[in-house]
């Protein structure tokens, strides 16, 4: 782990970059816009304006959000003392790209076509390198454990023809790789953040599994090791009513997230509410670091804020574009801090 002093510069620079984060009032103005053109005009007053010039149509706003995120990740990666902190955030996009290429391979064998258009530049591994590795079936140089995961996933597909099983091992691989990166970085806050994220993910998955009425053996594959709460403890919740979950996990930090839940009777709306609450909980893990000018956790906090900002903008633009209930969209906004 690089010495704490090295983070002073990075944190100071991030504090300066934080000024450019989209404020709640701007989000509100986007949401109150008459149409998508008006909303994009408001977005043009923010840092996103740099990417708006490349916009092909008003419905193409996802490219703008993606371009801004890529730019921020690239910039932060240039000055951060430990790139693993940025890699942590880009890792889910790598796994998404791997899934796209694996599924393309499956589709191609069944007479379909490749979907390279679904690849995102947000990942750590350049898309071209990933395509090359997948096409040549030479996975040796793939990082983040993908060199063993991808062949294992392909073998599993050949044996079972079950894409869900393939997804499960990739998801497990993703969280294992995230935890490994956090451990390697030697930053306590990063490890706590990853463990909190795994807990949040497990709770969210548990709710989804409960709603689908899945049995415990089937549910186990959807939960991930490495959080503060053990898989066994979480699986035992499945047999209990959701109302008793907050009490059962009150000892853990993620239990705090449940304390904000108003109504647990309707699982469909609870699911939507929990997505937001868990994102806010993950942000709260890094809250304490904001008073320390040398804390590496500030880098994670900034990047998470940026992710949430992107999510909030997407929610607002989708809502305006589809002319849906603005109050509902507002309720989905994450607390970017």
């Amino acid at each position, binding site marked *: 782990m690089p010495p704490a002093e090295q983070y002073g510069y990075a944190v100071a620079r991030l504090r300066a970059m934080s000024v450019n984060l989209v404020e709640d009032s701007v989000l509100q103005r986007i949401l109150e816009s008459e149409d998508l053109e008006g909303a994009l005009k408001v977005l043009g007053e923010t840092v996103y304006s740099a990417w708006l010039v490349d916009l092909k149509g008003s419905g193409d706003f*996802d490219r703008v959000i*993606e371009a801004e995120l890529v730019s921020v990740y690239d910039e932060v990666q240039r000055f951060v003392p430990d790139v693993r902190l940025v890699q942590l955030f880009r890792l*889910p996009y790598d*796994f*998404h790209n791997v*899934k*796209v290429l694996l*599924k*393309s391979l*499956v*589709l191609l064998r069944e007479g379909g076509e490749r*979907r390279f*258009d*679904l*690849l*995102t530049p*947000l990942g750590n591994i350049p898309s071209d390198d990933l395509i090359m590795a997948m096409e040549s079936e030479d996975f040796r140089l793939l990082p983040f454990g993908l060199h063993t995961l991808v062949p294992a996933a392909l073998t599993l597909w050949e044996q079972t023809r079950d*894409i*869900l099983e393939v*997804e*499960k091992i*990739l*998801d497990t691989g*993703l*969280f294992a790789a995230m935890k490994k990166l956090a451990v390697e970085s030697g930053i306590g806050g990063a490890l706590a953040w990853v463990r909190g994220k795994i807990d949040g*993910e497990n709770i*969210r*998955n548990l*709710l*989804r599994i409960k*709603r*689908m009425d899945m049995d415990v053996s089937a549910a186990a594959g*959807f939960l991930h090791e490495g959080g503060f709460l053990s898989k066994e403890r979480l699986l035992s919740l499945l047999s209990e009513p959701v109302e008793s979950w907050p009490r059962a996990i009150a000892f853990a930090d993620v239990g705090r997230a449940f304390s904000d839940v108003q109504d647990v009777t309707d699982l*469909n709306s609870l*699911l*939507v509410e*929990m*997505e937001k609450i868990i994102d806010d909980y993950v942000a709260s893990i890094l809250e304490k670091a904001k008073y320390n000018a040398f804390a590496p956790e500030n880098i994670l906090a900034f990047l998470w804020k940026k992710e949430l900002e992107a*999510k909030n903008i*997407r*929610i607002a633009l*989708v*809502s305006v574009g*589809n002319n*849906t209930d603005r109050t509902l*969209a507002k309720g*989905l906004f994450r607390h970017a801090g």
Partner: protein
Amino acid sequence: MARLNVNPNRMELSRLKKRLVVAKRGHKLLKDKQDALIKAFLERAREAKVLREELEDELKGCYKSFLLARAQTLPAMLEQALMISGAKAELQVGYKNVMSVMVPEYEVEQGGSPMNYGLAATLGSLDVALERFARLIPQLILLAAREKAISLMALEIEKTRRRVNALEHVLIPGFIETIRYITMKLDEQERSTLSRLMKIKEIVRSH
């Protein structure tokens, strides 16, 4: 009314009278069929309207759930999750005769689970939306069958109406007119024969 181009003889008269009886009977049957078809059509149209309204409301709910998932995820991730479907639907088509209209009856059998994606990059709203869509598919197919039946019945009603009109305003009046013409012709022939015979009788008597 246009008279048929026929020879005015008794043979033709008798043939035309038979055809008129058949045409009148056919007209009555077709008229009854048309009435029954209209009644069935209206009933089905009302049912289909109610079903369509229900399904449109349900579809709105489905799209709302889907939009929730769409708003909170990178669209590429959402599409990636749905690249390979785990659900299968088999559709069987049968036909049922409703007053000589062959209306389709679809039977859909769904298998597998629509949830064929990892949970890490997807949202619960997507599960909800897909579940609702999967539940809606048999209803949508039922609506498709009903609306197809209505459309086929409307065509049949139109066809029957044309036939009824053709019989009522063209064929039957034509037959009646022709029968009247032949009857008049035959009567005239009879009168002419009678007067000829009377004349001959008179000539024979004067000699």
